[in-house]
């Protein structure tokens, strides 16, 4: 019987009981509100510094990723006089994207789709191998937060000192230290925004313009936006972003499997937790004693405030800092390291039952992800390497579909756009096949002395030409004839072709 049925039944029999219950509920609401506290303040996290293998990896990844981010706009790449000399540049006014030797036009935006596929499947592959290592090492939120933690420790001291001072009344030193922290944070955030805008214009020029106050308004605006967002997200929001804002932890949980390596507390070895002294006592009396001494170091170093000993956890970003912390303690206690490690629950069961451990990196899941990455990457490389540097696209006139000339000939008009992706000016010749006797006229292109009609397209440009094709054949043409336009580079002989139609009555 459900509560509602129970209530209904009691309403029939015992109306006074309902009234009493309502009165009690009202009293409770007056005391603590309808449903308990609706909002909770985040628990402040003071992560302790740690050193070890994973901390070192994180420092290296941080240096490389931030180094790339901040310095890449200044890398030069010579493309000749007609193109910008910045290695990585998103040129919105000219509608071009430059990446070292690659130049993309807006209509090639599908390479972005390819990149997104690679990024997504790459993330899935990482997840299948070792859980949320993206979150722990590579995610911008993690990297910048890590940097901000380092600044915080530099100005306000490590965990204990920082906590202690936060509990004390405000002094000049406290103001000075906190002020220095926020100043440094804002400087990093400002530099982050500054580096961002450099990807959209010539970096040295823009730096000069920014310094002299002559940069476009959009540059200042974006620097402002990114300064605020970096300062807020990395300085103040921190683990709240991972816990409440990021969708990946939720998706990740649905994509993982039992073989994926996770930061795991090996409770088969750690439990029951007891002090060193107690463990000796228990062991001498033949009773089981775990290696975990409940020192809470793993919790204190955690940037998201997780107790990994509670098992898999939404808050865990798999950064491995608790492994480093625990290993230091185990070294001091002369116990084997690896009480916390990248491991699986399967292996915990295996060790308990005396079976050998299994590390299965090559599985259907990982093979499939790797195959998709290889195929998508292969297609991208192939198409990039073999793409044409010239192109033609044609629109047939819609009104009128065809024109009857005064001598009875039929004429169709087309708008032809010729693409020259090379960084030099090129000359093309256009021909049309499919109808027996034709003549091509160009609007705005006077015929040259040698009779050949050449179309010159400037470097890295397109040119639109209105082309008129007249059919002089004596027999009336079919209502629709397929014609083939061929565009030939007179120097290299490269050809671009496109089919269209020649219409008649």
């Amino acid at each position: 019987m459900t509560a509602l049925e129970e209530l209904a039944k009691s309403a029939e029999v015992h109306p006074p009981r309902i009234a009493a219950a309502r009165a009690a509920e009202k009293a409770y609401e007056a005391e603590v509100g309808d449903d308990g506290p609706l909002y909770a303040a985040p628990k402040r996290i003071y992560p302790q510094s740690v050193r070890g293998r994973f901390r070192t990896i994180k420092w290296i990844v941080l240096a490389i990723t931030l180094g790339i981010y901040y310095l890449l706009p200044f890398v030069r790449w010579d493309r000749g006089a007609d193109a910008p000399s910045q290695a990585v540049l998103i040129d919105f006014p000219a509608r071009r994207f430059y990446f070292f030797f690659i130049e993309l036009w807006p209509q090639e935006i599908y390479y972005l789709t390819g990149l997104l596929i690679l990024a997504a499947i790459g993330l899935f592959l990482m997840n299948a191998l070792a859980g949320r290592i993206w979150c722990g090492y590579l995610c911008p939120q993690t990297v910048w937060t890590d940097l901000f933690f380092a600044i915080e420790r530099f100005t306000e001291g490590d965990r204990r000192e920082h906590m202690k001072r936060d509990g004390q009344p405000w002094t000049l030193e406290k103001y000075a230290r906190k002020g220095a922290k926020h100043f440094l944070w804002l400087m990093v955030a400002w530099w982050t925004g500054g580096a961002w805008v450099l990807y959209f214009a010539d970096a040295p020029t823009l730096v000069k313009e920014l310094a002299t106050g002559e940069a476009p308004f959009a540059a200042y605006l974006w620097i402002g936006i990114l300064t605020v967002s970096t300062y807020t997200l990395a300085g103040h929001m921190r683990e709240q972003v991972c816990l409440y804002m990021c969708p990946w932890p939720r998706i990740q949980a649905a994509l993982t499997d039992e073989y994926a390596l996770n930061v795991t507390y090996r409770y088969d070895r750690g439990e029951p937790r007891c002090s060193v002294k107690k463990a000796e006592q228990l062991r001498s009396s033949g009773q089981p004693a775990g290696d975990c001494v409940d020192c809470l170091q793993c919790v204190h170093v955690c940037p998201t405030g997780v107790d990994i000993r509670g098992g898999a956890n939404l808050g865990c970003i798999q950064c491995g800092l608790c492994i480093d912390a625990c290993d230091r303690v185990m070294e001091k206690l002369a116990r084997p390291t690896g009480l916390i490690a990248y491991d699986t629950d399967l292996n915990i069961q295996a060790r308990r039952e005396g079976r050998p451990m299994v590390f299965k990196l090559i599985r259907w899941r990982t093979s499939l992800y790797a195959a998709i990455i290889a195929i998508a990457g292969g297609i991208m490389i192939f198409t990039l390497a073999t793409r044409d540097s010239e192109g033609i696209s044609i629109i047939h006139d819609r009104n009128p579909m065809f024109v009857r000339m005064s001598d009875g000939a039929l004429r169709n008009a087309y708008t032809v756009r010729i693409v020259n992706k090379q960084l030099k000016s090129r000359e093309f010749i256009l021909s049309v096949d499919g109808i027996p006797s034709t003549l091509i006229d160009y609007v705005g292109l006077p015929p040259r002395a040698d009779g050949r009609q050449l179309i010159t397209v400037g470097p890295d440009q397109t040119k639109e030409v209105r082309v008129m094709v007249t059919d002089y054949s004596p027999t009336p043409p079919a209502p629709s004839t397929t014609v083939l336009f061929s565009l030939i580079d007179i120097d290299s002989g490269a050809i671009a072709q496109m089919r269209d139609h020649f219409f008649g009555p």
Partner: protein
Amino acid sequence: MADEHKDIDAVTGTATTGHDWDGIRELNTPLPRWWLWTFYITIVWAIGYWVVYPAWPLLTGSTEGVTAWHARSAVVTDLAELKTQRGPMMDKLSSAALSEIAGSPQLLDFARAQGRVAFADNCAPCHGAGGGGTKGYPNLNDDDWLWGGKLDDIVQTLRFGIRSGHDKARQGNMPPFAGVIKPNEISAVADFARSLSGLPPEKGADLALGKKVFADNCAVCHGPEGKGNRELGSPNLTDKIWLYGSDKATIEQGILNGRGGVMPNWEGRLSEPVIKALAVYVYTFGGGEK
């Protein structure tokens, strides 16, 4: 029930909402407080918005806001900005001779782009979106011109119109011949006119009579060989293009009732550079004469 609120979930240590669905209970995990603050910030933002922008509807309008921003005035500003941006090219277009425009690729592109828009706004209702024309409204793509297909001719037609009532409009029309020539003569001259452009005459057509009637009545404007006269806008009857149609009934109708389509004058309604741009645009449909 009230006392169910105090239920604490044993696993998480979190309070439950007290709701019970077949033994499944819902944890009452509180939202982070910053979430609430974010909500308050949006409210503050909204209030700021009311102050800055027009927001609250009143009886005869709305609150203006300190910026008094309006979509309409924003468009006007944008248009003015566009005009400034186009200014140098528009000036060039105004001062350039028509031949200069045709000779400069940059100016030609600009004129065609301007012309395309002006054509869609002003000309397309009669001449069609691509200048394809229809019965009574000339196809501007072909090489047949009633009043001339050189750039200067086209500009003049655009400026003053045809039979538009403007002093300088192109004049001359096809007069009605009803009552002037006999019905059998009309039939014969219609057959003769068709034969001029190689169309097969009807069975029993009296081409000799037609030729005589033509020479007496039509050759004045259309010329002795029917080649037309651009001074008068009289069409060339020997080509394959028929403004109103080439069937005999249509031709007879034209002879009986006359013809006199009107092209409005655009001077004063469109600016000088726009008229020039339109002329260039129409010229480059493909029929322009050198």
